[in-house]
């Protein structure tokens, strides 16, 4: 499955658009009760636990989107965009969406 931010892929032609696909997860982490983040709360700088949480959440959202595209019989998801919405302190929704399409090799050189 090709997953890309682009709207067209070199040497491929879109044969059918299967519509919008998306995946999302909601994650929460309370920094005040997270001991590893305690010192970071004082010093500031990168909060590695948060960075990792966001990375994992998007990975899962991507997997859900790809599963949805696969169930439609898609070859690729084009125009992929991410969206992050803070729902409260330490809580956020991680969304990814794109257009599922079927592809064929481009005939014209």
């Amino acid at each position, binding site marked *: 499955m*090709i*997953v*890309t*931010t*682009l*709207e*067209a*892929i*070199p*040497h491929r032609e879109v044969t059918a658009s299967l519509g919008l696909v998306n995946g999302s997860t909601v994650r929460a982490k309370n*920094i005040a009760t997270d001991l590893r983040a305690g010192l*970071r*709360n*004082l*010093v*500031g*700088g*990168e*909060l590695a636990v*948060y*960075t990792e949480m*966001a*990375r994992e959440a*998007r990975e899962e959202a991507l997997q859900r989107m790809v599963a949805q595209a696969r169930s439609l019989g898609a070859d690729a998801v084009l125009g*992929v*965009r*991410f*969206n*992050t*919405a*803070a729902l*409260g*302190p*330490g*809580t*956020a929704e991680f969304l990814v969406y794109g257009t599922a399409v079927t592809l064929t090799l481009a005939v014209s050189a």
Partner: protein
Amino acid sequence: MIVRLNPWLAGAVLSAGYVLGRRDARAHLRDLAVRERESAVVRVEAGAGMPAGDFACVLVVGNCVVAPDAFRRTVGYWRNRAGSRRAGHDEQLVERARREALLRLKDAARSAGAATVIDLHFETTSFAGADLPGPVEVMATGTALVPRPPS
């Protein structure tokens, strides 16, 4: 807040936050400068224009969450109460996160075998509470172009 509980403890926390926060920032900026020179081989473009050649398109992402130190957070809290908006997130802090996110995206592109990333987008999200400055994330996304040998 701590400020009302014990002025000595609050003073110690704020000074420690100020000193350690500045030291952490300086170390991070030095580290960024070194790694940015190393990853300069990866070309990054905001546009989606495709160069000539055959490429596999690989989605690449880089992110970084940063938070202000105790001193800046407390200053920000009082400035917010005084009416200024979203104080305490100094520009340098968010800029550090942005450079770090871009570096991670470039690292992902390099390990995929790409020398070019196109269609770059940034997204910045605040995970902070109502009036206390808190964590901010910068995420970079783009498409890494991995050259394919002519078949």
